[in-house]
Structure formats: C-alpha cells, structure tokens
C-alpha cells in the first residue's frame, strides 16, 4: 500500500544519499589504489608530501615524545638498578682496559700526524655535526626509519650519515625544514659500502628489516672472514665519511655473514648527523633503472 503512494522528497533523498555514500566509498578505495601506483611511480611528489607532513607535525610529535621518552627511560632505569653491581664491575674492568687503549691511541695519533706531515697527505675534509632527537618511529613491519627533529634550518641535508654513540645508525633520506627522516641500516632498502677492518676487504652492508643486516659481496667467504671482526664505512661513493664503525661480523648457521650493529636500535634516542660537505651529491635524483631509484624512497 505504502509503495503506491507518491514518495515525499525526504524519502527520495534517502536512497540517493545511500547511493552517493557508496559511490564515495568506492571512489576512495580506487583513490587508495591510485596512491599506491603514484607511490611506486613518482617518488618525488610522495617525498615532498612526506617532508611537508613531517614538518607540519614535527612540533606536535616533539612535544608528545618528550614525556613518553621519559617514561621509557624510567622503566629502563628501574631494570638497570637491579643489575647495578654487576654493571659496575664490568665498567671498572672496561675502564682499565680503555685507559690503556687511550694511551695507544694518543701515541698513534701523534705518530700518524707526523707521518702525514712527512708524506704531504691531503687532509680529510673537516666534518660538522648536527645533533637531533628522534621524535617518531615508523613502527610498522615494513620500514625501519625514524623522524628526527632537525631539518634544513639546523643544517640537516639528504645523504648525511646519522651516528649514534657507538656507530652508524642510518642515513638521511628526506630532509624538510625542521624534521628529517633517517633510514636505519637495518631497513630493507639500506645499502652501505663498507670495509672489513681486519682484511681490508670491501663489502656492502644490506638491511633486510631484521636486527642483523647482511654482509654482501665478501670475496673471502669462509677462510679470511672471522666472526667478531669490525665493519666500518669505506667512504666509497662519497656519501659517508670513511671509518664510521657499523658493527661486528657474525657468521650464522647458514654461513651467510651478517653484521651485528653497534647501535642499540631499541634504545636509540639521539643521533648526530654528519655533514661531510659531500652529501649534496645525492640530492639529485640518480638516473637509472626504476628499481634503483625506488630504493632511496623509503
């Protein structure tokens, strides 16, 4: 009976509105697919969007992350207090050993300086540092990157190395005005030219999102390479200064050499961005196959 009556305008708008809503939903889903394609195809636009977002949200994230960091630190401290005595013993012992090493290092430094002078070696370019606090973390399972609260204004630039107290943490991949993104060395897309200190052999440290990045292209696979050897940046490619420690070689059960990083990524709070003056070489998009260009993106 009711169906036979002429529908009022209100009744008419209801199905139209429902239809419109469904249409909008479909459009949004299609737009998401479009964004995935855009993210794969045009990395420059996406990168600009990312830096813009990071710049806008940086002050807010900075404010939120401070108390959160404090809470995290307090929990860690409580845990540490229980192991205080053992830690003290270990440190005392380490301190004695390190004092000896300091002596050695001083002597070598002086000797090195004299030899350099004798040989007329070109001095390494001087480095400058920018300290930055980590304000956000990618968190997800796919990316290993962090946002830091230093951008172009503070002197951060794309391509700079990010160092934590013990070694290399990553590389600046996007630099905004007041925030930058650092791609950690454990990320899937991270490739760093290195030297194995004992054998002076060149290799590449390649992240795979796991805690221990792989050590690729080592020629002396089993004979020369020993576990525990230090791996440092080689400076090849002109992006990083040479000699930044990265980690130690570990030989897994599958005999594939990996690197145990010196940086504790769980507790990372501050990084120093190293400006070599060479970083700008990377800011121009590198021409080449799509796949390689896509690497620098994340």
């Amino acid at each position, binding site marked *: 009976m009711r169906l036979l009556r002429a529908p009022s305008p209100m009744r008419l708008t209801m199905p139209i509105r429902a239809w419109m809503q469904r249409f909008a939903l479909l459009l949004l889903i299609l737009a998401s697919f479009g964004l995935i394609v855009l993210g794969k195809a045009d990395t420059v636009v996406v990168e600009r969007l990312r830096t813009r977002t990071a710049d806008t949200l940086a002050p807010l994230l900075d404010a939120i992350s401070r108390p959160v960091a404090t*809470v995290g630190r307090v929990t860690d401290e409580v845990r540490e207090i229980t192991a205080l005595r053992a830690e003290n013993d270990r440190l005392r012992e380490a301190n004695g050993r390190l004092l000896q090493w300091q002596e050695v290092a001083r002597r070598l430094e002086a000797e090195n300086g004299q030899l350099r002078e004798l040989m007329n070696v070109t001095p390494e370019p001087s480095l400058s540092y920018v300290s930055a606090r980590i304000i956000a973390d990618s968190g997800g399972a*796919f990316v290993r990157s962090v946002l830091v609260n230093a951008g172009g204004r503070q002197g951060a630039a794309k391509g700079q190395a990010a160092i934590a107290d013990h070694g290399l943490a990553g590389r600046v991949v996007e630099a905004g005005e007041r925030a930058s993104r650092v791609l950690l060395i454990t990320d899937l897309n991270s490739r760093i030219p290195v030297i194995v200190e004992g054998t002076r052999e060149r290799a590449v440290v390649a992240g795979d*999102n796991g805690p221990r990045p792989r050590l690729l292209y080592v020629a002396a696979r089993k004979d020369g390479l020993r576990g525990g050897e230090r791996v440092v940046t080689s400076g090849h490619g002109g992006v990083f200064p040479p000699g930044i420690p990265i980690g130690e070689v570990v030989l897994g059960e599958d005999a594939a050499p990996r690197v145990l990083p010196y940086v504790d990524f769980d507790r990372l709070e501050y990084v120093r961005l190293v400006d070599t003056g060479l970083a700008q070489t990377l800011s121009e998009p590198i021409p080449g196959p799509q796949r390689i260009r896509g690497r620098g993106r994340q």
Partner: protein
Amino acid sequence: MTAGVLHRLDGWARDLLPTLLTVALLLLSAVRVPMAGFRTMTPAVVLIAVYHWTVHRPELLPPGVIFVVGLVQDLLTGSPFGTGPLTLLAVHVLVVSQRRILHGKAFLIAWWGFGLVAATTFLVLWAAGSALSGVLLDPREVAFRCLVTVTVYPLFAALFLGVQRAFMTRA
C-alpha cells in the same frame, strides 16, 4: 539564541570525538618509546579505533576521514604509500557488511570479530608490503604484531566505551 548555538556546538564537539581520538592515537602510535623490545610490540591502535567506531558509530567516522587518517599514517611512518588508506577502508567495508552480527552483542563477539578483521588486515598488509618491496617479508613479525594488537583490544575498547558513555549518550 546563544543557548541554541552553544547546544549545537556542544553536539558537534561530541560528534567529533571519534575522529579526534583516532587522530590522537595515530600521533601517539608514531611516537618512539626508547625501551627494549618496544619496536616490535607496538600495537596497531589506529586499526582498533577504526574498527570500534565503525561497529558502534559508523556515521561519526565516515570513509573520508578514514582515508585521510590512513594517508597521514603512511606519510608519517614512511610505510608504502597508499596501503594505509586501503587497509583501513577495507576494515570499514568488512565491518559495515557484518555490523548486524557485531553491534550490540556480547563483548566477546566484538573481540572475536576484531581478531578476524585484524588477521585479514595484517595478511593484506604483509602481502602488499612484500609485493611492493619485491622481497618476502618476515611473516613472524607481522603475526606477532597482529597478536599484540588483538591482545590489547579490550583495553582500548574499554576506553572508547567509557568515552561513549560519558560524552556521547543520546539525550
């Protein structure tokens, strides 16, 4: 007159609560906690928020808002561009289609439903992430995060329900 305007403003503010809470959780989840093991334990709280509000008040968290939230999440975390809005919208579609089963029933049913939705979402995320990066990602980590997210669900659901009871009961 003023009372009417104030009343309407008050209503708007209450209607904005789901969006505001979701955005706040998005920002909070991006913040880094310098604590051992925290990286892998971070639950996907935005997923919880989208699920909860779509079950209880879908009209207050429309697809447009979900899309923007997903987009900002991608931009902020640096995850593959576009996967955030896609998965969150998929959650919306899934929940809306099953809303009759999920809404107004026992809490355990909502939790169970969330488990299914979270498992599907993480599976899609893992597949998309693997396809987009060209490498098979470690499924254990994704599974673990999914488990953590499902485990903490009641906590956030309780928070949202509390907010709903306190501010959003229709007078």
